[in-house]
């Protein structure tokens, strides 16, 4: 545990970091009270689970994971559309995590195995390079992501893209989802996503503070998260709710103004579907009319409608196993992976049933990778507590 805590420090003396983390934890324990704190970021969940923070936090402090993984909340419909485009002969290019997420019938990776041209990239710029390299092919970039990722897509489109490049947008804004959660579940405070806030700043989180939810923008080291929780507890001590910035080395109150302007120029806000949650008003970012020529939905309209029809037909025929997947409840902080009957048995990172297990930052994936012991203990009757690994469960 201690070894893991120190391994993250960059140019910082390990011992001093450890001492600081111990102090932060000590203070946190002294300040603790029964609270449900929710973070909205897959990278936070990964850091919390990797460093085993839940195992050292006081019991009365519950840290919940919200819908903070854009891969996990990408609706099946959008994946089906990307697959339909790939099967029609277009080259579909997207981020690695997205390839394995199942749509209503298989994933992009399945489509690739069956002969469709699907490529993985690290950046939208790499997708543009694919279009430049294969001018005779239609290249569709399946652009998913939150506000952290959206500005890079805007920048690429503003710089100009080849004629054979189009953009299939499945992008989301996080504040509307947080707003929905404040009405839907029992939660006391929020850890705001640090890298989303890098772009949008701290202001969009202020309405939640006004509603009485303390908010802290936090970084991703163990000490950042311990600091963030301390700052939240301090707000409770003072009986106040505001937005504290615990990540000022990166996050400015106004955000990244250049990135925000680019986003505004290229994309417009509208309703969007979140997997497991449903439609959320003003949470989507689609291309403005001026960028119609780059909009895959408009460029390939016929194909789109055909695919949508097929999706509607398939909607009722989902297999039973998938229906047992409780990803929707996990995404909204209503359940933990250990409550899922498929977790660790049918559903593993090698054979994922739902998106929470597919994405490297999905809660189930993080828990399977870093929190297996807790899972085995929880999922077994007490007398079996010492029995073997999860594979024989």
């Amino acid at each position, binding site marked *: 545990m201690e070894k893991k805590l120190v391994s*993250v*420090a*960059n*140019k*910082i*003396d390990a011992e*001093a*970091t450890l*001492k*600081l983390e111990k*102090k*932060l934890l*000590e*203070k946190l324990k002294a300040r603790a009270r029964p609270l449900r704190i929710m973070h909205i970021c*897959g*990278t936070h969940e*990964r850091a919390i689970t*990797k*460093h085993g923070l839940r195992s050292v936090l006081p019991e009365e402090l519950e840290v919940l994971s919200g819908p*903070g*993984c*854009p*891969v996990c909340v990408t609706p099946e419909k959008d994946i089906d559309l990307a697959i339909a485009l790939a099967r029609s002969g277009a080259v579909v290019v997207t*981020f690695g995590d997205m390839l394995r997420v199942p749509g209503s019938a298989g994933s992009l990776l399945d489509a690739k195995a069956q002969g469709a041209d699907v490529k993985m990239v*690290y*950046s*939208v*710029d790499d997708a543009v390079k694919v279009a430049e390299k294969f001018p005779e092919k239609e290249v569709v970039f399946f652009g*998913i*992501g*939150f506000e*952290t*990722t959206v*500005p*890079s897509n805007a*920048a690429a489109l*503003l*710089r100009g893209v080849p004629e054979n490049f189009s953009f299939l947008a499945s992008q989301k804004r996080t504040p509307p989802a947080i707003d929905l959660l404040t009405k839907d579940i029992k939660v006391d405070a929020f850890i705001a*996503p640090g*890298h*989303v806030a*890098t772009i949008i700043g701290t202001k969009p989180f202020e309405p939640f503070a006004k509603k009485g939810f303390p908010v802290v923008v936090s*970084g*991703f*080291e163990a000490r950042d998260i311990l*600091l963030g929780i*301390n*700052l939240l507890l*301090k707000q409770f001590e003072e009986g106040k709710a505001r937005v504290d910035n*615990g990540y*000022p*080395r*990166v*996050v*400015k109150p106004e955000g*990244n103004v*250049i*990135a925000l302007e*680019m986003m505004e120029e290229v994309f417009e806000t509208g309703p969007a579907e979140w997997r497991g949650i449903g439609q959320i008003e003003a949470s989507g970012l689609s291309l403005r009319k001026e960028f119609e020529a780059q909009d895959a939905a408009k460029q390939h309209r016929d194909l789109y409608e055909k695919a949508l029809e097929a999706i509607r037909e398939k909607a009722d025929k989902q297999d039973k196993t998938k229906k047992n997947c409780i990803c929707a409840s996990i995404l909204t902080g209503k359940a933990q992976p250990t409550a899922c009957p498929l977790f660790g048995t049918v559903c593993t990172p090698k054979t994922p049933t739902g998106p929470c297990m597919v994405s490297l*930052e999905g809660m189930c994936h993080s828990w399977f990778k870093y929190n297996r012991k807790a899972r085995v203990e929880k999922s077994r009757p007490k007398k079996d507590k010492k029995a073997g690994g999860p594979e024989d469960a």
Partner: protein
Amino acid sequence: MCIAIPGKVTAILNENTASVDMGGIRREVNLDLLGGASNALLGKYVLVHVGYAISEISEEEGKETLRLLRLMADLDAEESDFEKTNANGKEAGVCGK
């Protein structure tokens, strides 16, 4: 997905891109979201996400982070060898690397 990695701008390649050193690995990074690749960013630390720098990591604000950490941990000046070890380095640890 929103993971971002800090790195140092080591060379300006053209008006959009720079070479950024991320813990020994050099990558071409687009600086459009910081107003383009200008010489002013040379030697600065930036936070990189999907090939784009999304924020400059400022030394001054790094100090603010240290102040907050100390405040919350209740460490006084003598106890804080944390800052000393950090004086010549950037407070650049950002993601779970």
